[in-house]
Structures are given as structure tokens and as C-alpha cells.
């Protein structure tokens, strides 16, 4: 199962939502990262970038990809991009809320919030 990916580069709003447990994580995420990397490298000025991650389930193999995604965004933020990540999880899903905190707490340059719905 793969999440829905809605990267609107023109309005600088990036969104991923749903469940992530594909058989081959690399095959699914590699082209996503390529596109994101191209976008981040082509940024001009310090426009605010809004990233919304709203997962309902993430398996362990997908966690590596999410680490890579957030590291890519944090590196871009260290070079001047204004990246804000909103991690959304169900109010009663402590596992996903904790995962968001675990993945984001050590990122130094981007800003983030963990929200529940």
C-alpha cells in the first residue's frame, strides 16, 4: 500500500497522506525524492514551504524513507528554505504521534508541529 502524494510545487505545498507499506520502498520513494530534490534545488528566495504528512500507518521499512525525506527538507532549510512540517495523526494513535516526534525532534533547521485530528 502506498500513500497519496500531492506535491504542488507552484504553491509550495507538499502533502502525503494514507498508509505506507509497499513491498519495495525504494522503488516507490526514489522517484518521489528525485522530484522533491529537483524542486528544492531550484528554489529561489526564501518562500515558505508547507509540508503536511498525514499518515494512518507507516511500516518499519517506510520509516527509512521518511527519515530521508525529512533530512532532505532539513538540509534545504539549513540553506535558507523556510520549511514547516505539519505531522498529523489520529488523536488516539499514540504510535503515529510518537513516530512524528521521533522523526522530527532532531531536525535543526525546519520547524514542525505534531497535530491530532
Amino acid at each position, binding site marked *: 500500500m502506498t500513500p497519496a502524494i500531492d506535491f504542488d510545487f507552484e504553491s509550495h505545498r507538499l502533502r502525503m497522506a494514507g498508509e505506507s507499506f509497499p513491498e519495495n520502498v525504494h522503488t516507490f520513494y526514489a522517484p518521489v525524492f528525485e522530484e522533491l530534490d529537483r524542486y528544492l534545488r531550484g528554489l529561489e528566495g526564501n518562500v515558505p514551504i508547507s509540508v503536511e504528512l498525514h499518515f494512518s500507518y507507516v*511500516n*518499519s521499512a517506510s520509516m527509512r524513507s521518511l527519515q530521508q525525506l525529512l533530512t532532505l527538507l532539513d538540509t534545504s532549510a539549513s540553506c535558507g528554505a523556510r520549511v514547516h512540517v505539519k505531522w498529523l495523526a489520529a488523536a488516539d494513535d499514540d504510535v503515529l504521534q510518537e513516530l512524528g516526534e521521533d522523526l522530527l525532534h532532531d531536525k535543526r533547521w525546519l520547524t514542525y508541529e505534531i497535530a491530532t485530528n
Partner: protein
Amino acid sequence: MISSPSDAVDPALHGLRFEYCGPFSESVIAATSESLRSLLARNGVDARTARRLFSSYVELTYNILHHAIPEAATGGISRPHGRLLVKEEQGRFRISATSRVTCENAVALAERLEQFRNMSREQLIFEYKLRLTNLQFDPASASANGAGMGLVTVARDALEPIEYSVDLGAQSDCLFSIHALH
């Protein structure tokens, strides 16, 4: 199967039961995990337990997909085979995953699980967080298996130490089972 009168009052024999035995693929995992989720919801299993069972189901099935010896199926396509069983036992749920693996693989799996069995809950949470953090610094070893995150996730979420058993198979292979309680 003939039920004795004592079976009729034994909740362990009348609780929720979910079983899949056969070839595994991404689509089989997606379909069967969704069936399990529906069954848990229909039976009013609390959301917290249901989420952890679903997660353990996905991690254990992917463990089979990555480690089991492929077996020829109808149509001649070899796929990893295995058996997943979720069984309610006195209000708790035991999930068991069994597959044929090479004995070399069985030794490696047993070593890893033994390591987790000897850890306290706090140590398991620490181990999990450490591996999660390290994923960003270790792109060179970018295997599809998530650096052993799957089994540590199952061990972390289980109510009791994760269990395993190994039996010698018929063809110089090993029958490996992993059990976790939720």
C-alpha cells in the same frame, strides 16, 4: 472436529481467530491485513490493540516475504510461503508467523530475537529509537528491510517478550515461528 463439553465454555476456543496460509506478495499482504483490520473492528477490539496487531501482522508478513524460501505455486511462479495466525486467548491476542527458511537464516533470526528477548521494555524502546535515528546517517546500507526495524517494532509493541521456535524441516531447511502477544 468434535467438541467436548468443556470446549463449549473455554473462551480460548471461541475467541477471534484469523488465519492465512499460502504464498505472500505485496497484494496478498495488503488484502489480508485489511481483512484482519475489518475483523478486529467488527469484534470491537480496542483501537490501540487493533493498531498494534495490524502493525505486527504487516511486519511479520514482510519478514516472511523477505526471508522465506520461495515455493512453486500454481502457474509455476515461486513465491515465499508462510502461515499467519491471530488467535484470541483469554482477552489477549497471540500472533504467530511460520515459514520455511534456510537454517543459516534461522540462526541469524534466532540471534536477533534472543537479543530482543533479553531487553526490558525501556531498552526495546531505546533500541527502536536508536535504529530510527540511525536510518538517516546510514544511506549506504539502504536495504529494503529497514535495518532490522521490523522485528524490533514487533518486540516493542508486544505485551510479553517475543517468542520463537525452530524445527528442522524436511529438506535440510528450518521451520521458523515467531510469536507475539498483544
